[in-house]
């Protein structure tokens, strides 16, 4: 993958060395910036989660982050009818999994939006704005950077005790 330190497996670890931390595992996918690509992106995430045997609650939250972030980019990020691409990167480090989404849309920091107040009734409830709220709440760490004309949203999921699991 051409990145320093990006080697994914080192099966021939020198037996005389003390065992190091388990290797960082990575995956990358480029998709056209269209909503009909979300299914493939979710399947790619599921395959990565399978190889790591990720707990269901973690894969669910990463899948939600992926779906909401890509939906936002495609729905609001493009000001022209040209072709766009979105780069998705997954990496596992210890029991944390990081999902990075890089797009060439207009500058937009989803984390800068002020969370809206909870509506008291159905009549007052706005239809929309839920995606970013879900990203913030369901992922354990979110960062945004604008770099070289691209938006980069980084989301980290760590295991959470959930229903049916020991706290």
């Amino acid at each position, binding site marked *: 993958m051409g990145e320093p330190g990006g080697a994914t497996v080192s099966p021939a670890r020198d037996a005389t060395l003390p065992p190091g931390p388990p290797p960082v595992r990575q995956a990358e996918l480029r998709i056209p910036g269209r909503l009909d690509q979300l299914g493939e992106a979710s399947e790619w995430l599921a395959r990565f989660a399978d190889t790591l045997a990720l707990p269901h609650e973690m894969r669910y939250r990463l899948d939600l982050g992926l779906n909401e972030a890509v*939906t936002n980019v495609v729905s609001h990020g493009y000001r022209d009818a040209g072709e766009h691409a979105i780069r998705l990167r997954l990496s596992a480090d210890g029991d944390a999994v990081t999902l990075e989404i890089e797009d060439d849309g207009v500058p937009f920091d989803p984390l800068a939006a002020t969370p809206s107040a909870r509506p008291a009734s*159905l009549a007052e409830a706005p*239809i929309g704005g839920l995606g970013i709220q*879900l990203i913030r709440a369901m992922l354990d760490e979110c960062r945004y950077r604008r770099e070289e004309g691209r938006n980069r949203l980084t989301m980290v999921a760590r295991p959470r005790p959930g229903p049916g699991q020991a706290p």
Partner: protein
Amino acid sequence: MQMDVSEIDGGIQHIRLSGRMDVAGTQAIDLRFTALTASRRAAIVVDLADVSFLASIGMRTLLSSAKALAMKGGRMVLLNPQPMVADALSTAGIDTLIPVHTDLGAACQALAGVAAG
């Protein structure tokens, strides 16, 4: 995503959704769901037991139908979401706007008095 509709006691509509309620899944059922729920005064149980994933676009469909129903004097309740779906519903505050039940009997009771028009 699949959608099955049946009528249960007291004219209550039981809508059973199954599959992933992501962008593609929601688009697949949105028209039928909205037509069923938003066109008249109705009492509706939306059964989420077989919904494995719910994105914000699916929540929007639920929310806008529930709003339209309420304006016509109807009502919607949600039934049996899977744990992560329930978690997302509560994170988004949907559960305070559309009641969530874990038992069909209780869901029907919550709809008592909403006669289907």
